[in-house]
């Protein structure tokens, strides 16, 4: 029962992160490793701000900061290199490591404690679960519902979906790739930041968590299929349940977390290189 509840909330939290990354990748074909930096920056700005302005304003401010960073990075740097995926990957990886080290310079590399938005825990069907996890689950459901509405019911969403399916035709029909591109980067960063602030109080905050986020995002993209937001989300369900299972079976296996993502990723790449939910295409 605990496994079920923990796995479910975990998959919702991870789902936010993976969906954000998959959205950026799908709409702009950009493999943005700086996604980890948005995640990291949101967590640290929340850590700094919650004492100053309170928890809820801090949440919103850090989301805005992360989205701002995403906008700047995409506007100034990544948009120019969008034609060459490998260059994008190298540049954004270098930037992401740079940002993580800059944060080490400011805050040090030790573990930071971030208080949860909601304290305490409640019992559900015999499983004791922290309120933060529950809240994270609810927030994730709300955010993903909003994302679905945004993608499927608004004109902007139509443009984004058009760009995902047929970039050239979408451009002919008057969709401005750069606007959409930047919007999507910001939306993706918002999802990542939200995920970060939900996840970080449950785990720990160090300058290295960007790698966790990136690996999750990778796994989501690989398992879910390139650029498929919902595929990525479903992939996270798989990842989260495997992770919960592993952590229940091997109690002191904290550092196995990354290994779990990586293992699932490699296996899926070997068996179905285009993802479990992806369509076969040349990629």
């Amino acid at each position, binding site marked *: 029962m605990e496994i079920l509840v923990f796995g479910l909330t975990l998959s919702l939290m991870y789902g936010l992160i993976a969906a954000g990354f998959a959205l950026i990748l799908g709409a702009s074909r950009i493999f943005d490793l700086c996604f980890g930096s948005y995640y990291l920056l949101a967590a640290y700005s929340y850590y700094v701000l919650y004492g100053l302005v309170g928890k809820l304003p801090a949440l919103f401010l850090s989301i805005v900061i992360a989205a701002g960073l995403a906008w700047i990075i995409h506007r100034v740097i990544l948009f120019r290199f969008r034609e060459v995926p490998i260059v994008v990957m190298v540049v954004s*990886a270098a930037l992401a490591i740079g940002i993580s080290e800059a944060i080490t310079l400011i805050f040090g590399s030790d573990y930071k404690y971030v208080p949860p938005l909601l304290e305490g825990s409640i019992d559900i069907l015999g499983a004791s679960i922290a309120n933060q996890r529950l809240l994270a689950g609810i927030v994730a459901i709300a955010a993903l519902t909003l994302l679905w509405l945004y993608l499927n019911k608004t004109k902007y969403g139509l443009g984004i979906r058009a760009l995902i399916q047929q970039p050239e035709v979408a451009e002919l029909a008057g969709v401005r790739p750069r606007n959409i591109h930047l919007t999507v980067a910001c939306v993706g960063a918002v999802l990542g930041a939200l995920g970060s602030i939900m996840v970080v109080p449950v785990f720990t905050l160090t300058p290295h968590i960007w790698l966790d986020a990136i690996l999750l995002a990778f796994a989501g993209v690989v398992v879910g299929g390139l650029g498929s937001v919902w595929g990525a989300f479903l992939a996270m369900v798989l990842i989260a349940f495997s992770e919960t299972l592993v952590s229940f079976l091997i109690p002191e296996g904290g550092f196995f977390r990354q290994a779990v993502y990586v293992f699932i990723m490699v296996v899926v790449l070997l068996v179905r*290189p285009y993802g479990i939910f992806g369509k076969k295409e040349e990629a």
Partner: protein
Amino acid sequence: MESFKLTRIFLDGRIQSVLLLLALGTVPFWAFNLWFVRIFIIANVFAVYALSWNLLVGYTGQISFGHAFFFGGGAYASVLLNKYLGIPAPLAMAMSGVMCGLAGVILGYPCLRVRGIYLALMTWAFPLIFLGFVMYFGEVFGREMGISGYQGLSLSYSVNYYVSLALVVLTVLATMVIVNSRFGLIIQSIRDNEVLAESVGINISKYKILFFSLSGVIAGISGAFYAHFLKSITPELLAVDMSILVIIMVIVGGLGSIVGPLMGAYLVTFLNNYLLYIPELRMMIYAIVLIVTLFLRPKGLLPWSPKMGSGGGAE
């Protein structure tokens, strides 16, 4: 006429390389102090490492985002052989190179199935898996503290320097021979048009794996030398930073040539050592260097673009 000849002499690639070799060959004599020699040694190590990445990516077009697997793996293999089995350092280095080559063959197989971004992701995973082992078998690998207390190659900086230089020269020669041979031609034809290459009867898989393994051997030996020179290693050798660093070196210098990665490695290592006081900002500065290079000279630095010096890298 005379001056014309003089400029020709200086522009001649062979004479340039002789001059460069002379300058590098005498470093221990004109270097200001030992620290300077040390930087040169490290630069040589990274030059070999960069050349190994370049051999794989520049000529075969297979992207590796996890070359730290070979570099760190070579370092760990050599150190463990030396420390626990008492194998002398030079032999241990050679053996770790062979082991990395075998690892390259084994890892090359799954990598055949994927390409492009997926290949990058797949290779990204390898050092992480190795890192998992390092952390799990802590008694052997020393966890975060790493390993020390094994035999170095030599105490003298000059000897170390010449060994490292010899490695660079060997790697350069090997790259030139391989690239200009039938192998090189085949592998470049695979890079440029895989389907066409296959249709003329080239066994793509064989060559791809061969180059994966070759690149692994070179990277492994450079890592092993690095380990024996530093006399202590930490799991940082396997970190993502190591994989990205070599990519930055090669791309800043110029992918698919021989001089490019060399220059990139020297540039980045020297930057590295003058930025010792702000270690946390190093990667940021490399990122900026990388982005500026890509902004200013995007054509010359992108993979196998036609504007690239002497083309495809028969340099």
